[in-house]
């Protein structure tokens, strides 16, 4: 009927592993003092893969020294996901998903208080389709939260223009919908929805 696990509940500081998303959001308020257990944070999570078949290819361009914009995003097979960065001096770099994640994590760690409030490369990755894909495919939920933050206004601003952003929304939608084994395109047989359409009242308590 139930299972019991015994353990000490008064945790030592190093054991604290509040979820990545929440810890980062709260810590990035810039109000936190005291020492953070950063080194332990990452090893404390064991990420497990959920399979997505669609990924994102992100084209990013340096527009001023150190300032970037996403100029295009396209839907590709998940394992072909890549960020292609073109610098002012004309050379290009290809960032694998692992490299993109490392760059995002490094930036979050060093710049808690203003991550994303700048137009650096890691912000392009984090708010762009890459961050969305990474969050989905590796259960790095903390990346997902950024794209939808502030009604998506920050995400809009990392694209070179509204049309590019709109296109990218379609791309991330395809990532989301690519949970193929569980997706059907016709209504399930005998399907019904609309329960509690006239909401009764608050249910928690």
């Amino acid at each position, binding site marked *: 009927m139930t299972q019991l*696990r015994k353990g000490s509940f008064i945790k030592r500081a190093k054991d604290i*592993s509040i*979820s990545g998303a929440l810890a980062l959001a709260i810590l990035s308020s810039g109000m*936190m003092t005291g020492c953070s257990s950063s080194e332990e944070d990452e090893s404390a999570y064991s990420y497990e893969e959920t399979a997505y078949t669609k990924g994102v290819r992100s084209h990013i361009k340096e527009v001023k020294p150190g300032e970037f914009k996403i100029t295009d995003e396209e839907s590709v097979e998940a394992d072909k996901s890549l960020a292609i960065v073109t610098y002012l001096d004309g050379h290009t770099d290809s960032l694998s998903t692992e490299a993109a994640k490392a760059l995002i994590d490094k930036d979050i760690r060093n710049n808690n208080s203003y991550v994303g409030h700048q137009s650096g490369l890691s912000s392009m990755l984090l708010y762009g389709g890459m961050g969305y894909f990474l969050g989905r495919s590796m259960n790095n939920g903390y990346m997902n939260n950024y794209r939808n933050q502030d009604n998506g206004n920050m995400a809009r601003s990392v694209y070179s223009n509204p049309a590019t952003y709109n296109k990218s929304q379609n791309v991330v939608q395809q990532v989301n919908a690519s949970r193929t084994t569980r997706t*059907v395109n016709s209504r399930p047989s005998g399907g019904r*929805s*609309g329960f509690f359409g006239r909401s009764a009242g608050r*249910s928690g*308590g």
Partner: protein
Amino acid sequence: MVSLAVRQEEAEDNSKSINTRIMIKLKTLSNHPEKALQNVGWNWMLGTDTSPYVISDMVVITEELANHYYEAAGTLYDMLIEAGQYAIDNNLFKDMGIPENLVELIKTSWIDDRHVHLYGRFDLAGGIDNEPIKLIEFNADTATCIPETAVVQWAHLRMNGMDDSRQFNTVYETLVSQFRFLKDINDDLNPSILFSTMRGYAEDDTNVNLLAEAAKEAGFDTDFAYIEEVEFSNGQGIFKFESETGSFIRFDFWFKLVPWEYIGNDEPELAAMLTDIVKTRKALILNPAYTLLFQSKYILKILWDLYPYHPLLLQTERYALPHKKSVSKVLFGREGANVSILEKGGEVLESVEGDYESQSKIFQEYLNFPTDAAGFSYQAGVFYAGEACGLGFRRGGRILDNTAQFVGHVVE
């Protein structure tokens, strides 16, 4: 003359109660978690149009008391399992106010260990100053206060430069372990979970967001849809409709912050579909239907019958206690609604109204909650997710209702 007599009586009563009142020790922290809450979008906790829901004070408790709460919750959970079995064996569903159309699902989930009770919250009185801890009730099905307990009070310590290990709080980590366990024991199902609330309650949404975060960390693919948008199919399971692509995505686990008794009473067709979906293992539903056995306040009477005078229990009957002050509660009331305090024999002293008046009631022995210097009453909430894993307090008047504030704690 009459009014004077009343006043004298009141004065006597007050002096008596001041002597016997157990005092809560508070610590006021200089940094309020306001900015952090805004940052994560939990503005509902700031109560801009009401008094703030999260406050700067923290309750100071001893490590010994934290241990007592931990042990009490474990003992009570074991007793609840006995009481649940007793209720099933004696077919007490009707007395418990449980809709008949959920009985089959309750029995199905009860006998199958894969239907893990994800979490619940004990509401407890006593504890402070070595007073005996007493069970007020157990929120087994749709307990809230998860973000406040798991995150806010922890952040509150951190932002005041205090040692965050000095808190009885592993709610988040324990939920992650509980989701891992759930996934492992149901390895025939796809680790995908859809979370649902009823539309229009930011607080409920925040609670399931935190659960979703824990599920994600445990390796689940997670998503959210309001219950009115969820697609149910007897033959195929539970789906989220993606309007952009016109496709339906199946989820093998479904967490609903929607009370089972609402489903049974208000949406009988859904109750029937869910029974079918669970029995054919198209999806596993959380919290399981059997948590309704614990959620019905009638379980408090069953506990008293099975464990009379147990130190963790208050006497609970189907009638107003003739020789003791008592509290009447409807079987499925929430947040203090339809609760009354009664004098010996049944005269009503104080009431909170609500929407549940038509339900049957139980009567539980009255006990003063510990209070602080300002006269607020404090109730301890202890989360249980496979084991006791966290503590938080609610404070308010003698009946804690939906205006009660959340107060964190520190172990000193």
